[in-house]
């Protein structure tokens, strides 16, 4: 059931078309992540939903209500800012109570709801602290409590883990995921970190230049990317120019419903293996090998300046193939490859 509907939203800042007829639908109770590099418009889209940005065209519908023309203070969506935007002159409890005070709730109700919200994020004992004396992770939780205490229909989060150091990040991501599941609120995250997207979401929308390139559950995006751009953004991918003939890739047993001519083959590094003898694939030389422990990543020079990345599982004690060694690279599972029309190389 569609809870949030974004319909053909466009926005231009000066000469820059930041959002270009962007459309996406979010089901109730699910988590969508807007994923993309900086400048792709993901944060602008989030801010448009919150009302901080007025779109040039398009509609934003939440829970059946068209909120496109509504000012931000009437939209009733929860928003967590990248730097948390906690009010420095208010304590944690006052920060969380802010929205309730604006709604002119009575003191008793505010006290109860604030206590509940702080318990939800396990910050009860810090209620009287000021934000300056909290750690990054604690500040984030206050921001979340402040948004959730108002019981909004929707929660929007702008790169909430950016300000945390790497170690804390994964733990906080999992914790947040559980919290959202517990509360059952429809959420949209914005991030440039694809690992975050994989951890947090039911569904990922990869954005590029103001448009949504592909929207699907995380693993589907990974296994079946629609474009080279998406393939390269999630995980690592090899993009190899190949020739189609008669519905198959020339020289390999990979079928694809494409006309004869140039095409791009997308194959993941872990879907390739190295063989010493002749094989049904590419011949080349090992250019560089990185021993990662459980796996080894090889860079294979296949001639014409092109390289293939191969991720090979490594049994304990197994030797690493030396640089300069001649090898043959073969596809492991043809079904797990994607072939895209045209020879677009890295352009997608």
């Amino acid at each position: 059931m569609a809870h949030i509907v974004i319909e053909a939203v466009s926005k231009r800042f000066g000469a820059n078309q930041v959002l270009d007829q962007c459309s996406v639908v979010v089901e109730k109770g699910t988590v969508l992540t807007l994923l993309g590099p900086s400048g792709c418009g993901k944060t602008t889209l989030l801010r448009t939903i919150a009302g901080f940005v007025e779109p040039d065209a398009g509609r934003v519908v939440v829970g059946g209500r068209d909120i496109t023309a509504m000012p931000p203070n009437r939209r009733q969506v929860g928003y967590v800012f990248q730097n948390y935007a906690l009010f420095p002159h208010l304590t944690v409890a006052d920060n969380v109570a802010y929205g309730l005070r604006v709604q002119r709730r009575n003191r008793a109700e505010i006290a109860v709801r604030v206590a509940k919200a702080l318990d939800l994020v396990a910050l009860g004992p810090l209620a009287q602290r000021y934000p300056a004396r909290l750690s990054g992770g604690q500040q984030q939780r206050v921001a979340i409590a402040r948004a959730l205490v108002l019981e909004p229909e929707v929660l929007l989060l702008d790169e909430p883990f950016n300000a945390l150091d790497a170690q804390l990040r994964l733990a906080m991501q999992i914790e947040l995921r559980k919290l959202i599941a517990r509360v059952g609120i429809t959420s949209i995250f914005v991030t440039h970190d694809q690992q975050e997207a994989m951890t947090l979401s039911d569904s990922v929308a990869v954005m590029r230049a103001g448009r949504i390139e592909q929207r699907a559950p995380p693993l589907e995006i990974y296994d079946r990317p629609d474009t080279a751009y998406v393939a390269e953004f999630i995980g690592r991918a090899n993009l190899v120019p190949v020739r189609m003939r008669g519905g198959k890739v020339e020289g390999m047993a990979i079928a694809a419903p494409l006309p004869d001519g140039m095409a791009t083959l997308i194959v993941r590094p872990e879907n390739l293996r190295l063989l010493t003898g002749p094989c049904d694939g590419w011949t080349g030389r090992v250019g560089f090998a990185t021993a990662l422990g459980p796996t080894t990543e090889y860079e294979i020079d296949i001639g014409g300046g092109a390289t293939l990345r191969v991720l090979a599982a490594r049994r304990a004690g197994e030797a690493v193939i030396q640089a300069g060694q001649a090898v043959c690279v073969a596809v492991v599972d043809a079904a797990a490859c994607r072939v895209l029309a045209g020879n677009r190389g890295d352009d997608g």
Partner: protein
Amino acid sequence: MTADALRRPGLPRLLRRILHGRGFWPAAPALAYLIVFMVLPIGTLLLFGFVTIERGRIVGDSFTLAHLDKALHDTLVWRLLWRSLWVATASSLLTLLLAYPVAYVFAELRGIWRMLVLIAVVSPLLTSALVRAYAWLVILGGRRGILNQALVSIGLIEEPLRILNTDWAVLIGMTQIHLPFMILPLLAVLDERDRRLEEASANLGASHTETFFRVTIPMSVPAIFAGLALVFAVSYTNFIVPQLLGGGNYSTLAVQVYEQTIVVLDWSRGAVLATILLSTCFAFVLAIVAFGSWLARWNEVAR
């Protein structure tokens, strides 16, 4: 704020933009106030130098260059201009000589010492200029002046020094009073400067003194000239200090402006002299700033 809260559906977008003003309207009262109470009055001031004034009102349609002519041909005016110029210049340079060390040392200090220096620098700023001038009057006074009393009692001199009512008194008074104006901007610049440039200089073999003259001072040239321009302007137009510390026979162009306007009540002459004062001050300040930027650019190239 990026949020546009004036979203009444009836209002067209352009009208909304104008009403919202993109944040201009809060400044409107202040701007209107300044135009009415500063721009127009200054215009009047310039105007009064070119009309005939009788008993505080303008007489008829008279636009005349007579007052300006008279002033420019008056040797007294030129003498006073010259004196104002050299007193202001000397005072500015003296102020710089004393201010730079304070700012430099401040940048090296930590903790409570910083606070003490700041207090020493800021407290004269908040004290009335009159009080400070009076203090110098008392200190530099003739036989009864404190300085003289002290020097005589120590036995350093026999006859009291005649400092008051001379150029020196005016110079000392002006320098001290304007010292905070020079120190504060230099303070900010020297405190926040990039020490690594000095470290690099030391690493390349320069002594502290060389580094000071080759790196530190050139780095602070813009702030130095900004301070010089400011101190020059306030010294050049200061009439309190020359009057009180220079004595009855001492005068500068600024003092003349005061006397003509308030004592002699020759408003036209006062206005013309004020115009000359302002325009020459502007010209000199421009020259200082121009020289400063030329120097800064030359530094860039040399580096």
